[in-house]
């Protein structure tokens, strides 16, 4: 196992092509020409929401194209009781609780992990779950728990951490898994009576792992175009253009805009690791509720790495804020600005719900980059 991340920065330069203002202008022009009627398209992934808002793309699109923001923010959909559990493990069980940075600020019923850390709990931000296994090896007298949140994208690394611990005989390592899956989320959105989504930009990085096959039946069943899309401005605009063109022609196919990263079959090695460690099960989504077969849980044989089973956790029922409409936001039924508490009671420094916390959450993205401009436009 290597401790260091090795980054090849020179390879990042190619990204500039996907931020080229001339190309952006050309795609916008094409979208303008292609869209003859209003269309509602959901970008599934919070990373895409972030990029759309941060680059100011939402304000550049023609009125015909209405983007709504999907449930693909892992931090946002992690159930409240799991956050409470993580806080409990860190505070009451004395474990070293590790997580990705975003997760720390999300409020639980009582407090966030960041607040638990300030109060003395051993909470650490890591970039890789493999680091957590190393931490367990370095601290044999402590229990280490990795808060394994995320979509299919982070599942292989989390699964690998369990395999590493298993092979190295590390018995003081466990994960608190909250893995969610994109296709069942798309189903949940489409099955909602209030939903008016006509096309999807599927999450490029998720498909890089899982491939695109599981999206064909969805496109067929719901008669919706699904375009696997990347995260840079040109990626997003190309994805939107492909979706609009399908919609205008009345087509409902799966297309791959992000082919420089996504192979149709995905990453078979990564899938193998996932299958080895996880199985699919029902999962609670914060703000949305339980979705059948929408998450990963540890397979039999790996129970000893399941923090849920390893520690007896005695916490009360999680209480959600009654004023937070996160569920409607996550399903794209309401936009952040339509929430009465947006920017008033609910702000990034005092969030009522998770979408105001993570930079991938639609509310936070709007609050940071978007809202004031809308205000200005209203004033002007």
């Amino acid at each position, binding site marked *: 196992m290597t401790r260091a991340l090795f980054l090849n920065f020179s390879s990042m330069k190619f990204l500039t092509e996907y931020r080229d203002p001339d190309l952006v202008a050309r795609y916008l022009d094409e979208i303008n020409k292609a869209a003859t009627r209003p269309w509602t398209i959901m970008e599934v992934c919070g990373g895409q929401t972030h990029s759309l808002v941060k680059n*100011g793309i939402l304000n*550049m699109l023609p009125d015909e194209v209405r983007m709504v923001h999907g449930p693909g923010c892992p931090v946002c959909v992690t159930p409240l009781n799991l956050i409470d559990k993580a806080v409990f493990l860190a505070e009451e069980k004395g474990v070293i609780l590790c997580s990705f940075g975003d997760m720390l600020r999300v409020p639980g019923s009582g407090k966030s992990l960041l607040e638990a850390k300030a109060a003395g709990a051993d909470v650490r931000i890591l970039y890789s779950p493999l680091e957590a296994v190393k931490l367990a090896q370095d601290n044999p007298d402590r229990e280490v728990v990795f808060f394994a949140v995320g979509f299919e994208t982070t599942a292989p690394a989390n699964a690998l951490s369990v395999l590493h611990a298993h092979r190295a005989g590390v018995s003081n390592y466990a994960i608190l898994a909250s893995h969610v899956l994109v296709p069942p989320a798309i189903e949940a959105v489409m099955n909602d009576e209030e939903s008016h989504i006509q096309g999807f930009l599927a999450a490029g990085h998720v498909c890089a792992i899982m491939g695109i096959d599981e999206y064909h039946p969805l496109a067929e069943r719901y008669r919706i175009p699904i375009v696997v899309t990347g995260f840079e401005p040109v990626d997003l605009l190309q994805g939107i253009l492909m979706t609009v063109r399908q919609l205008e022609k009345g087509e409902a196919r799966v297309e791959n805009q992000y082919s420089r990263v996504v192979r149709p079959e995905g990453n078979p090695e990564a899938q193998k690791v996932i299958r080895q460690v996880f199985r699919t099960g029902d999962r609670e989504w914060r703000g949305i509720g339980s979705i059948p077969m929408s998450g990963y849980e540890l397979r039999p044989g790996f129970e000893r790495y399941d923090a849920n089973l390893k520690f007896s956790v005695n916490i009360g029922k999680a209480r959600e804020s009654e004023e937070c409409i996160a569920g409607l936001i996550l399903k794209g039924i309401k936009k952040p600005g339509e929430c009465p508490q947006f920017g008033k009671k609910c702000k990034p420094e005092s969030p009522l719900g998770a979408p105001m916390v993570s930079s991938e959450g639609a509310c936070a993205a709007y609050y940071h980059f978007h809202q004031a401009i809308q205000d200005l436009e209203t004033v002007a």
Partner: protein
Amino acid sequence: MQLSCPMPALDFDVITLGHGSGGLLTNRLLDSGVFDLLSNEWLDERHDGATLNLNGKVAFTTDSFVVSPIFFPGGNIGELAVNGTVNDLAMCGAIPRYLSLGFILEEGLTMKAFWDILVSIKYACEKAGVKVVTGDTKVVERGKGDKIFINTTGVGEVHPRADIRACRIQAGDKVIVSGNLAAHGIAILSVRKGLEFETALESDTRNLNHMVRDLLDEFGEDIHLLRDPTRGGAATVLTEIARDTRLGIDLFQKDIPVDDAVSGACELLGLDPLYVANEGIFLAVVRAEIADDFVRRLRGLEGGKDAAMIGQVTEAHPRQVVMTSRIGGKRVVNMLVGEQLPRIC
């Protein structure tokens, strides 16, 4: 910075509680040659304080340094402690003269580390042209500190032509940055425990006072505001300016200078360079008429070659910083809530 002062032979190799007692061990530490490094007429007095002569208006500032790790690519906490306070004085339009130097050492700090930090302080002071005239050393028990904390307080003489005040900013003024953004924060992150990545990135820590003095000589009162965007980065400083002046600021992302490697690291770590800390650049708000000359002159100065005009002050959106993205979209730039935390995917 290359260190070239040999460490004196000592009969102790780690700092212990006694070194902060004020008694025998403290004196042995002082006499060991350690403080000869910073020797000058005021410090050599070993008095309770320093008596100084200053001319005209005086600027006065203080800052504490708690960076972890204490040694990082491109510098260490000692250099940072000198440059940080020197730069705060420079931002007031002052010529930095004298510093105080307060150490809080954690028991167990190696003398080698302390020596290396002191040598850096010596060189940083020489480069900036300031003198350490008074100081203090305390030692806390192991676990009660983080190796070493440093406080520096500085005084300087305000440049006769300087009139640096946010209230002098007017619509139409230009916003200029003296160099590439985000280098310091990313260099620190690259060596943070659990996040080591291999890179040639270095902190941009440096003094700004010589640059600022040259610019004040040339442009004087046409410089309306100077700020060094340390913690919170450029975004925080600019939003503060917009809030305080009740004017708006337009930023142009395509003009904001960021080194390719830093930009790549930010990309991968999910950080926005606008919010990442800097230690060797400043933001200037200047009268529009001199802006081009200002940038040209700055580029000719040591430390200023990447200077760029990145925005302007406007009446259009009071109290807001609005950035035109590289692709032409607009977004609001807000103050950061808490620390910038890495994203999940």
